């Protein structure tokens, strides 16, 4: 390789990465615009929404609540260790648990759990439908696959994740309560009172805004990568991986920006 070639190649490969990134973003945005367009012309949702809502919401409940419960418990343990005396801890631990759950961990962990459970399943299902020509078959039966497959899934994620997050927050605070009272020996009355006093409207709103946006990200990444899958079984596997990884990264990055915007 010539000297100038050696100098240029890192720059050109970086260029390629950036180009690919921009192309991907463009394709995903186009897909999202189509989603918005179809949602506005709401006509044929075909009861698919209810099925998806059950899958995303109801069936995710155990895993989301279980993680929330232990997250609340861990928050109590960790924050307690940070305080010098039990009196201070009694006032502050519930506050830390409640605010961390509501503002951060409820939405983020809930979204990550749903992304791994629901996002992968959706991408695999749509990907399989793509490579076995079932999506083409929908078209030839005069059903728009976008309306039939994509829309109900994205909408289900956007509506069910906030509901899951509300319950996860409650269960997380309860987990913190149990640890505080039964393991750390703090007063239960104090815990309830301080947790309640710590929560403001904006904490609730911030958490729910995040949940709706994270839901959109999960549904979008899952359906986009499934819908565009190619190359047989390997393509479906790749779509599934991408759906989860892209969603997780997008959730964490957007979490920062939503928080920064609110604070």
């Amino acid at each position, binding site marked *: 390789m010539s000297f100038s070639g050696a100098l240029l190649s890192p720059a050109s490969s970086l260029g390629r990465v950036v180009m690919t990134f921009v192309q991907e973003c463009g394709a995903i945005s186009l897909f999202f615009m189509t989603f918005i367009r179809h949602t506005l012309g709401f006509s044929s949702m075909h009861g698919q929404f209810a099925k998806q809502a059950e899958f995303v919401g109801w069936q995710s409940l155990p895993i989301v609540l279980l993680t929330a419960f232990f997250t609340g418990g861990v928050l109590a343990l960790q924050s307690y260790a940070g305080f010098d005396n039990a009196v201070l801890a009694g006032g502050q631990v519930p506050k830390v648990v409640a605010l961390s759950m509501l503002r951060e961990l409820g939405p983020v962990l809930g979204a990550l759990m749903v992304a791994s459970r629901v996002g992968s399943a959706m991408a695999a299902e749509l990907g*399989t439908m793509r490579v076995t020509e079932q999506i083409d078959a929908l078209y*030839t*039966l005069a059903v728009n696959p976008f309306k039939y497959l994509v829309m109900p899934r994205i909408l289900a994620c956007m509506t069910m994740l906030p509901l899951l997050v509300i319950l996860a927050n409650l269960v997380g605070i309860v987990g913190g309560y149990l640890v505080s009272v039964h393991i750390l020996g703090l007063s239960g009355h104090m815990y309830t009172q301080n947790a309640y006093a710590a929560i403001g409207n904006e904490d609730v709103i911030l958490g729910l805004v995040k949940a709706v946006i994270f839901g959109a990200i999960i549904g979008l990444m899952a359906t986009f990568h499934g819908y565009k899958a190619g190359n047989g079984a390997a393509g479906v596997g790749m779509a599934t991986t991408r759906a989860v990884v892209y969603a997780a990264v997008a959730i964490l990055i957007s979490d920062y920006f939503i928080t920064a915007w609110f604070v």
Partner: protein
Amino acid sequence: MPESITLKNVSKSFGSNQVLVNASLDIPAGKTTVILGGSGSGKSVLLKCILGLIHADSGLIKFGAESVLDMDEPARMAMMRKLGMLFQSGALFDSMSVWENVAFALLEDGMKPTEAKEIAITKLRQVGLRSAVADLSPAELSGGMKKRAALARAVCHEPSVIFYDEPTTGLDPITSDVINDLIIQLQDEYKATSVVITHDMHTAFKIADKMAFLYKGSFLSDGDPKDFKDSKNPYVAQFVAGSAQGPIEAAV
């Protein structure tokens, strides 16, 4: 009133792989046109281009009076309502039972499930499947049964244009002939325009009103089935005879 279909200089490539090269063909209304061609010659891609599932790179595709390449979404859906397509792979929806697959278009049109199921079972019988099959899932069917269920789905809403991508491949000779008779019957009954892709010469000559031979992405020859039988074109003659000797080299 069934539609005719016209292809003019249709080309399509995937990357550097030129699949269709200026393919031109008239598919007459209310007749059965059989498309012959070797494996990988682009027959399935051609059907998908007509349906708009694959966007042709250039050329003209007319479905009735309308140009497929310039259709907007509502026009495309209106076209889909008039046609039925049997995919080479079957493409049954594996999240639904067999009868829900067959009755899919009817259910989407808002027909009551009990009524739709009855129609589905009638269609399944027509393709030689017992009514007990209706409640199975596609994964529980054999390859040939899948093909027949897919055929029942393709014709369940009584389309005026029907595309069959290898309807008899993978079926035993008797079932194949039942399917041939069904294709002929559908064509007689509804005066449907049928487009059939097949490798099966018996099927081809039994059902064809018109034949066309696709070779390396363009039509080498099209016309009356009688002319195909004793064609002077060495490519066509070799294909019809199913001989390894001739100008067509088998892909190894």
